[in-house]
């Protein structure tokens, strides 16, 4: 589809009466010199639409359609990312097709993006600061250099997953980004341990919860609103595998993954791992920032039938993510040449705060299962790679299923435990393979 066709509609709107179109779409009113005078709401709206402020907005002619503004995801590219499926461009949300997640350590250009607001314009590591305050003995504000100098720098492979990964399979559908399977990844993160920093500031006994703040801005552009601010109970915060990270896979953190400083709180919904991190506050109550309350990142305390309306007070906050797996080889939908009798099958498995103890696969719709060769993780909270050769005895259509079991004996289920917001879908992954006749 040609770009000109895609943009024709809004072009017509502008062709008819550009200044009126500006006013209607952006609240933009031209000044006397016929330049677009974007102020207040109009400027913020157009900036929000573009995902960035417009430094030369006063020079932008009235009625000029921002070139970046087109309601199509087809041509949308994210610098430094490769092969991701874009679900949403304002704010940016993009996931990775399963077969592109085959690496044990997810390359930076393959890690999913889940933004709640607009990323900050300034991501300069030289001037970035992190403040730790609230219920602490010695509140501190530290630069990234201070963190590197004052604390041990460590690197861990850590799995990060959106709490809503797998939502697209819910029926009735649950609202939000319709993630399929690829809002997960396992990068090598380098930083300092959150627990070391908390010990340095001295957590008061009254502190029971953390509250995380980032430099991203609310979609509305309203500086008084936070797009998201979540936290974790102090017990989770003290885990030695939570990092205040400043490197991703040995290089800079990708701008959409939270450069130059972010939390990585592995095993829990990704939203606990605040991006563009500026502040960690210790609180004497359960944190109540945006997306902590209501039904956000919460599931019903008791299981409910699909489609049930659940009162707000019957929800509880998600803690650890459940046991899950992903098949990264072969790519689903593949047709193998006639005469193929075996397929190399590979993938990863992870289980929130737990380890994976085994992964089994089936090539006959779950009738028989074969235990896979499961790797030991390089460190806790890394996903674990597994592989196995699967027989495909004759031509035809096969489904390869994987089923992980964690160190507590929990297995992936076949069907979704439905919940209103579409979290925690940990059903067995399936790929379709056809052997040619």
């Amino acid at each position, binding site marked *: 589809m040609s770009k000109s066709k*895609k943009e024709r509609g809004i072009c017509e709107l502008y062709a008819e009466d550009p200044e009126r179109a500006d006013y209607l779409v952006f609240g933009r009113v031209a000044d006397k010199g016929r330049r677009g005078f974007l102020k207040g709401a109009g400027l913020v709206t157009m900036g929000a639409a573009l995902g960035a402020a417009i430094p030369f907005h006063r020079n932008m002619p009235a009625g000029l359609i921002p070139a970046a503004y087109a309601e199509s995801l087809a041509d949308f590219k994210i610098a430094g990312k490769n092969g991701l499926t874009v679900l949403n461009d304002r704010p940016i949300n993009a996931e990775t097709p399963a077969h592109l997640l085959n690496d044990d350590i997810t390359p930076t250009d393959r890690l999913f993006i889940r933004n709640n607001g607009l990323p900050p314009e300034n991501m300069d590591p030289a001037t970035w600061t992190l403040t730790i305050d609230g219920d602490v003995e010695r509140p501190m504000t530290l630069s990234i250099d201070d963190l590197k100098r004052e604390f041990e720098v460590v690197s861990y492979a850590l799995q990060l997953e959106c709490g809503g990964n797998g939502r697209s399979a819910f029926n009735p559908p649950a609202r939000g980004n319709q993630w399929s399977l690829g809002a997960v990844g396992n990068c090598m993160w380098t930083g300092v341990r959150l627990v070391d920093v908390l010990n340095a500031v001295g957590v008061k006994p009254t502190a029971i919860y953390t509250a995380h703040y980032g430099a991203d801005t609310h979609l509305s552009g309203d500086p008084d609103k936070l797009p998201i601010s979540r936290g974790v109970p102090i017990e989770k915060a003290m885990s030695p595998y939570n990092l205040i990270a400043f490197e991703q896979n040995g290089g800079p953190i990708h701008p959409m993954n939270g450069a130059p400083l972010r939390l990585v709180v592995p095993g829990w919904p990704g939203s606990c791992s605040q991006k563009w991190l500026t502040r960690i506050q210790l609180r004497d109550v359960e944190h109540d920032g945006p997306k902590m309350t209501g039904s956000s990142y919460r599931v019903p305390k008791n299981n409910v039938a699909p489609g049930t309306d659940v009162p707000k007070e019957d929800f509880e906050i998600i803690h650890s993510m459940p046991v899950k797996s992903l098949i990264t080889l072969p790519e689903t939908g593949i047709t193998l040449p006639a005469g193929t009798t075996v397929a190399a099958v590979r993938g990863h498995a992870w289980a929130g705060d737990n380890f994976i103890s085994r992964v089994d696969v089936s090539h006959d719709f779950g009738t028989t299962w074969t235990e896979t060769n499961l790797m030991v993780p390089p460190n806790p909270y890394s996903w674990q790679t597994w592989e196995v050769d699967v027989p495909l005895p004759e031509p035809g259509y096969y489904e390869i299923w994987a089923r992980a079991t964690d160190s507590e004996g929990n297995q992936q289920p076949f069907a979704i435990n439905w919940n209103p917001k579409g979290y925690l879908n940990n059903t067995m992954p399936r790929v379709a393979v056809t052997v040619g006749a």
Partner: protein
Amino acid sequence: MRFRFEVLGVLRPPLRRPLLSLLVAAGLGLLAQPVLADDDFFGEDWPRTEGYEEVGYFCGSCHSLAIVKQQGLSRPHWDELFDWMIEDQGMAELEPDQRELYLDYLARHFNEDHRPQ
């Protein structure tokens, strides 16, 4: 931010896609494609039924319409979503007839039987 929503709230009567400009463009040979008045601010997967412009410009001024098109929600759940945007996200209160128009459109096309493409 309230100002913006009020501005968008006065989008009616809907801007008419100017047939004249299409004819002129066609006459100039600028349109190789059939003349469909295809408004791709919205995208082809934004159904052209009553209210599509009002809903499309209103929702699309703050966030991508892609997030709308992914949803499959009942009318009451769309209604709740408006409450959430108003109460939690700083959206201005909607006029009752405006809300009805938007809910009608969303429930018509993005109901529980709708699945993302």
